[in-house]
């Protein structure tokens, strides 16, 4: 059975690649492969003739310069096949887009070696890797050092990706969809919004708006599963409602921030349906505290005065929670159906 390896990620677009570093890494890779192939040829192709000294063979400029500097390397004798393999490997290395962060070629996600080439190269790697430590420990050390540095780049990027995964940037299509969702939410809650806008009883506004807001926003959150989506809906609806009653802006903003904040503390993101249910369902409920505070500050009315009859207040609060959760559940159900149909 063919052994499968854990592939390294393609990071070319994610990291800044310095040309000089890339060139340096490519040269080291070529040097190491040259040494491995030379060791292999020396031990396995002992009787194959003719053999040519490395210094007399054609290589790229940097390798030729390296061979001229190191007499020991230039004295290696290579058979024709091994020379061809080295040349092929150098071509692949030169064209490799992953040199700055790669681990091993067999772990590459975009394998460029053909199957038969791989079969030719793998024995060289297997045999010479241990021999390299004995014969050229400095190059072996440099190779390991480079490997560890590359692994560290991969690890750093994975951590960054995880962080970004939690707070993904909003694309224009997300903003447009959330704005459209807000427009529909306001339209659906339109008939009740002006009536409750001037109601002085605390909780009445949240109770009236709970069902339409939870229903539509839950669909929005199922489509745009990015953290901050509910706050964006809150900002948009607040800005529009704020044109009618400025207090509503703070109400919507506070409600969305509190609801989303708590949902993200509990569920971390909107991947689970429960998070959507919680966040959208309790959106209206969380506007109650801000309504109370704003009424106290702007109208100078004490909280007890705003609450009035405790039974009515409790009815409004529990109604806002229940209606909100029902609305969010309906929204989730519709989203499920649309998801099955491949529309969401």
């Amino acid at each position: 059975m063919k052994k499968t390896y854990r592939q390294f990620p393609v990071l070319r677009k994610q990291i800044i690649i310095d040309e000089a570093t890339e060139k340096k890494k490519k040269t080291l890779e070529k040097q190491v492969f040259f040494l491995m192939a030379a060791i292999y040829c020396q031990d396995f192709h002992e009787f194959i003739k003719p053999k040519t000294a490395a210094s007399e063979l054609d290589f790229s400029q940097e390798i030729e310069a390296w061979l001229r500097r190191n007499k020991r390397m230039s004295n290696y004798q290579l058979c024709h096949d091994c020379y061809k393999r080295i040349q092929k490997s150098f071509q692949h290395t030169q064209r490799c887009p992953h040199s700055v962060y790669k681990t091993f070629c067999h772990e590459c996600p975009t394998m460029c070696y053909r199957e038969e080439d791989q079969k030719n190269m793998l024995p060289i790697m297997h045999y010479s890797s241990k021999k390299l430590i004995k014969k050229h420990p400095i190059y072996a050390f440099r190779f390991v050092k480079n490997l560890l540095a590359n692994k560290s780049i991969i690890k750093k990027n994975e951590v960054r990706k995880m962080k970004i995964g939690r707070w993904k940037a909003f694309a224009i299509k997300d903003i447009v969809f959330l704005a459209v969702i807000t427009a529909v939410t306001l339209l659906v809650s339109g008939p009740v919004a002006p009536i409750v806008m001037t109601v002085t009883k605390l909780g009445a506004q949240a109770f009236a708006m709970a069902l339409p807001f939870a229903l539509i926003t839950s669909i929005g959150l199922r489509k745009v599963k990015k953290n901050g989506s509910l706050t964006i809906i809150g900002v948009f609806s607040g800005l529009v409602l704020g044109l009618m009653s400025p207090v509503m802006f703070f109400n919507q903003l506070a409600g969305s921030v509190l609801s989303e904040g708590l949902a993200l503390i509990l569920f971390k993101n909107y991947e689970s349906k429960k998070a959507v249910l919680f966040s959208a369902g309790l959106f209206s409920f969380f506007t109650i505290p801000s309504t109370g505070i704003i009424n106290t500050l702007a109208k100078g009315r004490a909280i007890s005065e705003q609450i009035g009859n405790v039974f009515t207040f409790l009815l409004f609060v529990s109604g806002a929670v229940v209606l909100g959760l029902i609305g969010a559940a309906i929204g989730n159900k519709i989203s499920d159906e649309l998801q099955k149909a491949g529309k969401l």
Partner: protein
Amino acid sequence: MYKESYSIHPVLSLICSLLLFITGLLFVKEIWFCNYLITFLILLLIFRFEKTILKIIPFAIVFGAVMPALTLINGSLSEALYSFYRVLVLVMAGILSISIKPIHLVRALNQLHIPRWINLGLLIVIRFMQIFREEMKQIRQAIILRGIHFFQTPFLWGRAFLIPLTIRMLSISEGLAISLETRGFSTDSTGSSYETVCFQKRDSVFLCLFLTFLSLYTFMFIRGL
């Protein structure tokens, strides 16, 4: 660059609306509250807000009647009157903010370097409310044509209303997003505007008068006159 004419600077309108709303709610129980309302109504009439006032009158009549009536169920006559006054405050504040053209507001916010996604989103919400009102009307008509009635089969009515509405939301938003992207709109880029919304002399005069009257009534409120 092209300078367009408008009633009052959009941001100034918004700020004044907010101030009018907050102070109005604070002054509701004062004896001179009617004077307060009349003063600002005259100010708005001077600055040619009569069309908006006429538009908002039906709303004021309906909610001005409904709200005190609802308050009368539990409260006294004076509470109903205060409720009526609150509706009037809402209407007064609304005159200023409703008169703002969405595109002027967005341009003014753009000039203030407010993030583009907020401006864009606000514009979409305001513009698309009308479009979706029509969409919802069409969906309701289609439901009636199929013989589904809310009071007979509420669940079926809900499904028949919400699913096509969501599909329309998705298709409209996708089309809009694609057209925005092809026009170079993005959340991370800063845009430029061909037309600018400037603060004019008219705005300065309005601001001076507005602040003078507001300071006068605030002084009267603090002194308990």
